[in-house]
């Protein structure tokens, strides 16, 4: 294999014996990058009991580097950073791609610091600049009000990539080489100790076909109940309908954080997004622009949400929703 351009490394998120869905998107981003530079696509798998994941991932990458260690059973940023630093030292990748997840939010800057590299977080596209060799990283800034392309010159180019901006890579016919790396990890590396994991309510916004979201204009539990009636009506037509929320609704305690859509919540791309009493501030909009169809219901006809909606109803949700629900229920 021609490998004059070095290696592109992808960190594979995994759990429960499976790679995360985003891992296959990253592998696609990595494959595109590697193809342009005739580089080797390497998957890095960190964890405990990861042989199965490595075996499966080997159909997608040219090489799989695995560190299987009991100290990697649960995510601990300092220990993961040491392991990933070790991988970087061993294979000297040109680029290291990671999912923009809660864990990597913490891991990426640590690895960046320890490898002397700059990190660009939450990228929506990456591309190699053939002239300078820099990695060009597209990233929404100012809550999605602008888009910047950053030049990443330090190597490895470390980026975290937003979920669902790349399609998943298709499984290849041949298998890459799996290499087990040893890494001298010690519990004392962890500067922070976990005491308890408190489970939350799991709202699968990312898997929903339809999301009905509450905005700042909804101030009471009765308003949320009305939204739930709408989700009930939509379940006649769609398999998975969830309730979402903009940040003010979550901060007001009307819905739990797992419902939050937007810049600091979940970025979603359902078949149908119904924005109820949401004004359309950029931080919210940046999380929903991938939706196939958007319906906006807002009493302010000038609200920016209408600029990004396919269907708009100007009116208060208290008055519009009951007849909307009734008509939906009555459709043949």
């Amino acid at each position, binding site marked *: 294999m021609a490998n004059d351009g070095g290696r592109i490394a992808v960190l594979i998120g995994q759990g429960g014996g499976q790679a995360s869905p985003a891992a296959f998107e990253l592998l696609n981003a990595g494959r595109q990058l590697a193809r342009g530079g005739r580089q080797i696509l390497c998957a890095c798998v960190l964890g405990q009991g990861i042989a199965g994941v490595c075996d499966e991932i080997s159909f997608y990458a040219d090489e799989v580097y695995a560190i299987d260690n009991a100290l990697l059973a649960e995510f601990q*940023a300092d220990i993961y950073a040491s392991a990933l630093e070790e991988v970087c030292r061993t294979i000297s990748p040109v680029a290291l791609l990671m999912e923009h*997840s*809660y864990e990597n939010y*913490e891991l*990426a*800057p*640590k690895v*960046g*610091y*320890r490898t002397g590299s*700059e*990190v660009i*977080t*939450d990228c929506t596209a990456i591309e190699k600049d053939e002239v300078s060799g820099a990695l060009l990283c597209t990233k*929404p*800034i*100012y*809550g999605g*009000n*602008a*888009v*910047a392309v*950053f*030049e990443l010159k330090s190597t490895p180019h470390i980026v975290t990539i937003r979920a669902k901006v790349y399609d998943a890579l298709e499984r290849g016919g041949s298998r890459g080489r799996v290499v087990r790396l040893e890494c001298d990890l010690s519990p004392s590396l962890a500067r*922070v*100790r*976990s*005491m*308890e*994991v*408190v489970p*939350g309510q799991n709202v699968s916004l990312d898997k929903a076909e339809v999301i009905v979201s509450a905005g700042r204009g909804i101030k009471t539990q009765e308003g949320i109940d009305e939204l739930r009636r709408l989700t009930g009506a939509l379940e006649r037509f*769609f398999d998975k309908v969830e309730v979402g929320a903009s940040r003010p609704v979550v*901060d007001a305690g009307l819905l739990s*954080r797992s419902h939050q859509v937007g*810049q*600091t919540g979940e970025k979603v791309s359902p078949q149908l997004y119904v924005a109820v009493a949401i004004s359309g*501030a*950029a*931080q919210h*909009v940046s999380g929903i622009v991938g939706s196939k169809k*958007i*319906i906006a219901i807002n009493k302010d006809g000038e609200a920016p949400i209408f*600029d*990004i*909606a*396919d*269907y*708009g*109803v100007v*009116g*208060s949700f208290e*008055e*519009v929703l*009951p*007849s*909307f629900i009734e*008509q*939906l229920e009555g*459709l043949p």
Partner: protein
Amino acid sequence: MKAPVIIVCIKEIPDPEGPSSAFEIHSDTKQVVPVGIPPVINPFDQNALEAAVRLKDRLGGRVIALNMADKPITPVLKRALSVGVDEMIVLQDSAFKAITSQSTAEVLSAGIKKIGSYDLVLTGRQSADWDFGQVGLLIAEILGIPAINLAQVVELREDGIVVEKLRRVGHEVVIAPVPALVTVSSEVGDLRLPTLKAIQDARKKPVTVWSAAHLGIEAGKLRTRGIRSLTSPSSRARTCLRIEGSTPQEKGSNLALQLRQDKVV
């Protein structure tokens, strides 16, 4: 336990709640220029201030606000002094303009080292302008202290700092020895409003300014952000079909009928 010294890093940004039209994109100078919206303390830094002041309410001690800027301190930042901050330290130098997260963390770490003794450093989880979310974590790396990301509750105990740290679903309770750094998320709660008396008292509180030279930082070693281009978000606008009707109720049922006609439902 002994009264803690808490350092909170704060930054001024254009109000992120402003409408999209308030963010003018100057592609030629690669800048976003806010128009007609006020500057604010970065909302996540406000959450960090609130977390700090709550600890002070319970444990006493001292809260120091630390700001890095390329221009003199503004009235907006000084408002921190009226909500419980005791002292403000401004790291100000023209060399601090448009520098990377890494360089920003180096400057702030130099400021923290110069302050000397502290128990806790708090930052917002990210700034709502560049949205990198790295500076706090990098400061902890540079200072060699524990970092806890995305806090929703911050408690100081005899045996260390105990934090509820957000997970994608639920949260994790973690503990670390002090001094430590914690990045704070909006779940902590909004920053309190100042009282009239506090606004008056704030005028007497000290504001110290340190330049790059004071911090022993060579301006030439700071790196500026490498931006190839800066543009408006593309193709976001859609053609919105406004559903008409003589009453809101009629609009509601017309919406359902339209969706059926377009085979959306």
